[in-house]
């Protein structure tokens, strides 16, 4: 059957629906993989494009990501939300393709314009955006650079001429603020998202 909602996010899916799709992919269901692509393709392509900055290699990386999902759906970690798992997998795939010469732009910000669409699980996407905004700007700049480049603290410190300790401190504080803001109760694992994830593990 012709699929018209190709990677448009036209039908947003919630976490449980995404998990069901991943489980069906695990069983070798190609249609489930294509539905997963339709639902999440735009988000993951945006992420890859942001890291690689070049469409041709971004397209190849996107294919690699979903091929990996096809082969390794069984490796889905139920302690993460499906989009978090996909986001992690996508970042790793993109960084593996990123040439070292393109890892030095510390000034570039991650684009998250208020007007842009959020189509996969909009609540999670909105929370992620507002949480990033809460981080102090110097910490956020470094954090986004580290995320996008995969550079070590020493490499970043050398490039911007600051002590390694200061870079580490900024990253830790920034990531701490982000974690508390995105998953406020995950530390206690007693409820909220953490609780939901615990409950899914027993499914």
């Amino acid at each position, binding site marked *: 059957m012709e699929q018209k909602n*190709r*990677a448009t996010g036209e039908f*947003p899916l919630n976490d449980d629906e995404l998990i069901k*799709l991943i489980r*069906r*992919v*695990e*069983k*070798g*269901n*190609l*249609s*489930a993989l*294509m539905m997963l692509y*339709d639902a999440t*393709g*735009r*988000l993951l*392509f*945006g*992420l890859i494009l*942001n890291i690689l900055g070049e469409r041709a290699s971004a397209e190849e990386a*996107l*294919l690699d990501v*979903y*091929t990996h999902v*096809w082969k390794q759906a069984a490796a889905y970690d139920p302690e993460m939300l499906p*989009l*978090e798992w996909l*986001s*992690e997998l*996508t*970042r790793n795939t993109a960084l593996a393709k990123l040439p070292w010469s393109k890892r030095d732009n510390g000034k570039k910000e*991650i*684009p*998250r*314009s208020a007007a842009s669409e959020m*189509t996969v*699980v*909009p609540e999670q*996407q909105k*929370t*992620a*955006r507002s*949480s990033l905004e809460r981080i102090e700007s110097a910490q956020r700049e470094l*954090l*986004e650079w*580290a*995320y996008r480049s*995969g550079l*070590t603290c020493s490499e*970043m410190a050398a490039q911007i001429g600051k002590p390694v300790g200061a870079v*580490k401190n900024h*990253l*830790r504080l920034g*990531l701490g603020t982000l*974690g508390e803001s*995105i*998953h406020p109760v995950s*530390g206690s694992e007693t409820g909220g998202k953490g609780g939901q994830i615990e409950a899914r593990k027993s499914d």
Partner: protein
Amino acid sequence: MRHERATEELRELAALYALGSLTLQEARSLEAHRKEGCPACELEFKKFRRAVAGIGLAIDEATPPEYIRDLLSARIEREPQPALAIPAVQADRENPAPKAARPAPVFSALTQSQKEGPNMLPWVLAATLAILGLMAAYGWRSASSTNEQLKAKLSAAQEDANGLGTMLDMRREKVENLDRVLSAAGKPGSRIARLVLQTATPEYSGAVIWDTELGECIFLGNFPLPPEGKKYQLWFFTQGAKVPAGALNVNPAGKTYAKLPVPREAANAGAAVVTLEPDNGSLIPTSPYYAVGRID
């Protein structure tokens, strides 16, 4: 060594490890520690790992070219299916030697035994029976595994059909909703209110299309999920009354679509208002107006 609780130093290590910003040596050292099983460090690592993944969700989306979907489909068709592969069965199928090769020695042995004398015959017959038994067992096992595979494929196909059916229902419902909106908006007597959020930064967040001929309205909105125990409720305000029109449900994507009857008392309403009310609804607005629109 297991840590009683996470120190600042451990948190920093876990955060930088999750971000991939440790040197190889530092990362290996932490990995070795993780293998020892330290719950305090593991908890910190998981927390930071999810935070890092969250950064990716904040990035603007981008539409991949249409052909990527076709390329993906073609690429996957060439990949082995991850779950249906049954190694033991595959191995048997790839090495059909027992089936093809074993009979030959049996018959040559039989021929040999006839030449040598009758004493060998029982052994040859026993061997033949044993081999025939093995072949039968192999055949049964092969048929059984094929059956299992077909069952798995059937189950996957059924799930696939269910999934497609759900998608089709969703699309059908969407088309029907759009038809209703177009029909209501296109009627000469229809009235429309555009709803504006009553927040520090007012913005349009929905609309009410009132089909005066049918005495019903269609509500379209884009609202965040309400707090637990609360629901959005639509009101029609006339000169002297605030008429409740019904509850509004928000789907996980933050979209609201509702077709509601317009009460007769609301016939001369000049405004449509949305408030947050208790789950079971309210007869009068009990909270500040969430969104307001003049009915034109």
